[in-house]
């Protein structure tokens, strides 16, 4: 499954954000947890099955307006691929296919 601009990533079953009152925020998965800093937390909170990759990129480009937009896009795509490889996010269309 390729990562496309209109893909809608969402957290895979068994993966969720730690409760907001606990600090630091973590992405919790079976047997492990990833610590989330500013931008990774912004990306993961948008992996909700409704934001497209394009929307995530454009929202973060606005949020990090001092950074080069191409750099922001490249980092987001890299991070989403990593999360996908680690089975932390599903890309919505493939998840629907898996339900067949």
């Amino acid at each position: 499954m390729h990562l496309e601009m209109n893909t809608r990533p969402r957290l895979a079953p068994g993966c969720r954000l730690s409760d907001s009152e606990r600090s630091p925020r973590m992405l919790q998965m079976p047997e492990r947890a990833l610590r989330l800093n500013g931008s990774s937390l912004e990306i993961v909170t948008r992996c909700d099955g409704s934001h497209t990759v394009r929307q995530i990129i454009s929202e973060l480009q606005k949020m990090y307006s001092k950074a080069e937009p191409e750099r922001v896009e490249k980092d987001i795509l890299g991070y989403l691929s990593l999360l996908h490889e680690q089975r932390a996010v599903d890309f919505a269309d493939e998840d629907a296919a898996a339900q067949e």
Partner: protein
Amino acid sequence: MTATISTPLALIAELTHRCPLHCVYCSNPLELQSRRLELSTEVWSRVLKEAAEAGVLQVDFTGGEPLARPDLVELIRVARAAGLYVNLITSGLPLDERRLAEIVNAGLDHLQLSFQGAQEDAASEIAGTRVLEQKLQVIKWMRAHRIGFTLNFVIHRQNLNRLEEMISLGVESGAGRLEFAHVQYYGWAFVNRQLLLPTREQVDHSIRLLQQAQAELRGKVRVEYVTPDYYAKFPKACMGGWGRRLMLITPSGDALPCHAARVIPGLKFENVMNLDLLRIWRESDAFQRFRGEAWMQDPCKSCDRRTQDFGGCRCQAFLLTGDAAATDPVCSLSPQRPRVDATLAALNNPIAPSEAIAFDAPTPPAKISWAYRRNPA
């Protein structure tokens, strides 16, 4: 000077030793705790809140069979409300559709379903009861709930030749994660070691198959495996280091640094009925004993790997050498490694039967005689 004490990351809550299965490698101790000693719902609830306050991220409800506790749904709810990631480790046997819905609705994050094999006959021999059909049913219900789950296959000499079938079953199940764990030799598995320990050929073959599955399934299913440390060059970082990351609470409330720690003579365990969790973590004799490096002997004491594997497993060191502070004897640098090699040599190069017994009438192949655990009262 004592070592810096980190926060525990996971709490292993062994709710009960009762279980419908009798697995020949069960991680419960040989002396099983009876039902009347089990902690109440109130005490477990307090322990779960204390764990979250101490910084614990995840609770693993296990047993025995944790579903044997009628208050499991309530404990899941309490754990989740306290902010913990809630994992249930189960055989799936006592589950029906309604109970699964209840535990999912209570906030379960992930379920780990244990498998004894991919065929009913083989799985039943290991578990001492029929199990497979029910587990396949549980998988169907879990998929309907879109709950995250792992299938955990325990592998050993008697089922390694069916590893490919287990991998296929795992892939078809829709699990996000597959775990293939070679038996570790403590407790019941130590008693049954001669029947469980795989041959070198089996180990090499299994690792090749699992690496291949890992590569093929990347991005689809996470495949993880635990190698049998008797065949390793260096020991495992048991529990991520003694008293560094994990804490186990037994059904009666004793706090242990690992499943097997009770085999080590002279360790004094605190009980959650008497002391809060963080104080136990920081001060208990059992947790302090093998923290840091002060207890280490040579070769560990001066070894570069001591910060990676922490000297290996203390329980294994005791079981195989009689000294819990010795270097884990599976380490190739350990002066006691020949003991492990002798065990492996006996298995891999069996001596041909002598001519002398050829006069006896041919005997049928001996039936495997397992030591099965019982169900505690």
